[in-house]
């Protein structure tokens, strides 16, 4: 099992980096974990343009002038957990709802008509309302209409992931939120999610089940983002060694100060976020990097081609929000309100081809025996 080094140790590691370490890291063909520590350090800040240049070149070389687009589909905002930072947290007074299978299918068809071929099914953590049976049934209904079905739901057991994989789910996103154990305990107030280690082990269970892609990430704004970046990279490195057949992606959800919402404990600026994205791209040339609609249009446009490979678009974070645009009960407020066509146009204007899928499930062969441990 993967274990995270002590956060203070990670911070020390980063802080000790010198400007020479940063320059050396920028010169390297393969940025290793020590180089990454330097690139995440405050000393690297003034090299942000150089980091962007390298990140951009690597991303172009590996992914070409192509950006993938996807949309989240919120199925349920019920949640049995209490997470201090989340709009769905059990204590919050919001209108709660779980879409029926028919409603969910309807929402999906709206996205389908808008041109999406990759959707991300999202729920809170309420296994009774939206459990494996529900997800399996929905996946079976949707699998033929979409090229890729990802899920971002409560952590499951390997056998459950296997069931969903057979039903057509191709990817699993499960974010540790923070790798800092102390802060993790502090913001996870009640519910199963309080178990740090079970959550940490979840990407491995999903990968072992044969999922094509695993998404990991930290909720930026909870703990020191530099150490968070290093912990993420260590997790990624470990996962890659265990599951060489699996693709990996990293998300960068960032908490922003907003009236009436949870205030970030350790605010992360756009500049910080950029440094983190560039550094991770230098560290891992193949990892998918996601930039969601939490970020604003200006920032998302600026980042095109510099590192991220996948954007969400036209997102609504409340269940039923695509058929009823004014619905309440969102998870977080969106920073980029453009629809799919507008995001596509922005990509095209920058010379990038918006793609709606990168794999067809029809090609999938379900041979679990040949998978790595």
């Amino acid at each position: 099992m993967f274990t995270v080094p002590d956060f203070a140790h990670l911070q020390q590691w980063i802080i000790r980096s010198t400007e020479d370490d940063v320059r050396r890291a920028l010169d390297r063909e393969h940025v290793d974990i020590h180089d990454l520590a330097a690139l995440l350090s405050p000393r690297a800040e003034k090299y942000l343009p150089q980091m962007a240049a390298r990140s951009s070149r690597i991303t172009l070389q590996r992914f070409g002038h192509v950006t993938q687009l996807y949309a989240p589909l919120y199925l349920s905002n019920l949640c049995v957990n209490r997470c201090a930072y989340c709009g769905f947290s059990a204590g919050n007074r919001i209108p709660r709802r779980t879409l029926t299978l028919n409603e969910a299918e309807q929402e999906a068809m709206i996205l389908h008509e808008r041109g999406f071929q990759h959707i991300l099914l999202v729920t809170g953590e309420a296994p009774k309302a939206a459990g494996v049976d529900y997800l399996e049934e929905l996946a079976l209904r949707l699998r033929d209409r979409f090229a890729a079905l990802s899920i971002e739901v409560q952590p499951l057991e390997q056998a459950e992931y296997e069931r969903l994989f057979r039903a057509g789910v191709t990817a699993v996103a499960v974010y540790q939120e923070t790798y800092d154990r102390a802060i993790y305990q502090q913001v996870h107030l009640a519910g199963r999610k309080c178990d740090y280690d079970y959550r940490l082990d979840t990407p491995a269970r999903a990968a072992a089940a044969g999922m094509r892609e695993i998404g990991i990430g930290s909720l930026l704004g909870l703990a020191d983002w530099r150490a968070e970046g290093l912990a993420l990279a260590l997790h990624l490195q470990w996962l890659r060694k265990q599951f060489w057949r699996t693709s990996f992606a990293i998300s960068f959800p960032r908490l922003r100060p907003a009236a009436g919402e949870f205030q970030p404990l350790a605010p992360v600026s756009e500049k910080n976020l950029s440094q983190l994205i560039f550094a991770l791209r230098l560290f891992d040339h193949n990892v998918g990097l996601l930039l969601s609609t939490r970020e604003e249009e200006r920032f998302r446009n600026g980042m095109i081609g510099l590192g991220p490979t996948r954007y969400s678009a036209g997102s609504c974070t409340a269940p039923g929000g695509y058929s009823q645009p004014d619905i309440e009960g969102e998870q977080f407020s969106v920073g980029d309100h453009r629809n799919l066509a507008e995001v596509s146009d922005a990509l095209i204007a920058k010379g990038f081809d918006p793609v709606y899928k990168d794999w067809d499930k029809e090609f999938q062969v379900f041979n679990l025996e040949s998978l790595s441990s």
Partner: protein
Amino acid sequence: MLTIAGTQFSSRLFVGTGKFASSREMKEAVEASGSQMVTVALRRVDLNNPHDDIMQALDRTKIHFLPNTSGARNAEEAIRLAKLARVASGTNWLKLEVTPDPRTLLPDPVDTLKATEQLVKDGFIVLPYINADPILALRLQDAGAAAVMPLGSPIGTNQGIMTAMQVEIIIQQARVPVVVDAGIGAPSHAARAMEMGADAVLVNTAIAVAGDPVRMAGAFRAAVEAGREAYEAGLGKPSKQASASSPEEGMLTPDLDFIQD
């Protein structure tokens, strides 16, 4: 320290015992190399010349025997040799070689994988000799190989690490130790493999046929130590740029003014 299948080795140089002029010379060379792991082959006793006995020459309390399956042309032959080797040596350790082409002695990936799967089931600690194919290395690792031994260049060619790009990928990806085998013709080749991050190298011909094998063994020992030390110290990679603070070649630094805070 290098650990393979739970056994620790303080030396990262493995030495092959073939092609020496005499057992005595081999023994002295192995000693000078500091190696704790030597490969040996199984052969029919030559009834006309029965007195050359390698088991007696080496002190097995200090040196691990790694029997190989050299000569095997397919999985079945390799498995047969492996079983004989286990009985003869009293060790489960095995360097698996399956070489159907007698000209190049390049290893057969398909039968190597097949034999590895079987031998692991039979309780062997298998170190397969392979072409520098990263996916094969991973498949073997998944099949339970204790290490992988990619070749630097075809055996006996002394060309060094011609497969560097592939070997680098193997080193980057593998969970098991990577021992670069074959093609290492000079201490500088061994140092290069170690600088790249290989866990160990296996050298035979270059020592055995040197003018003074014992001194050459010492030279390899020093090269392997130096290469490992350099790897651990963090080697600066050669760069086309004069300095990272200058913009990338052929590319302007992007405009980052869109970033607001």
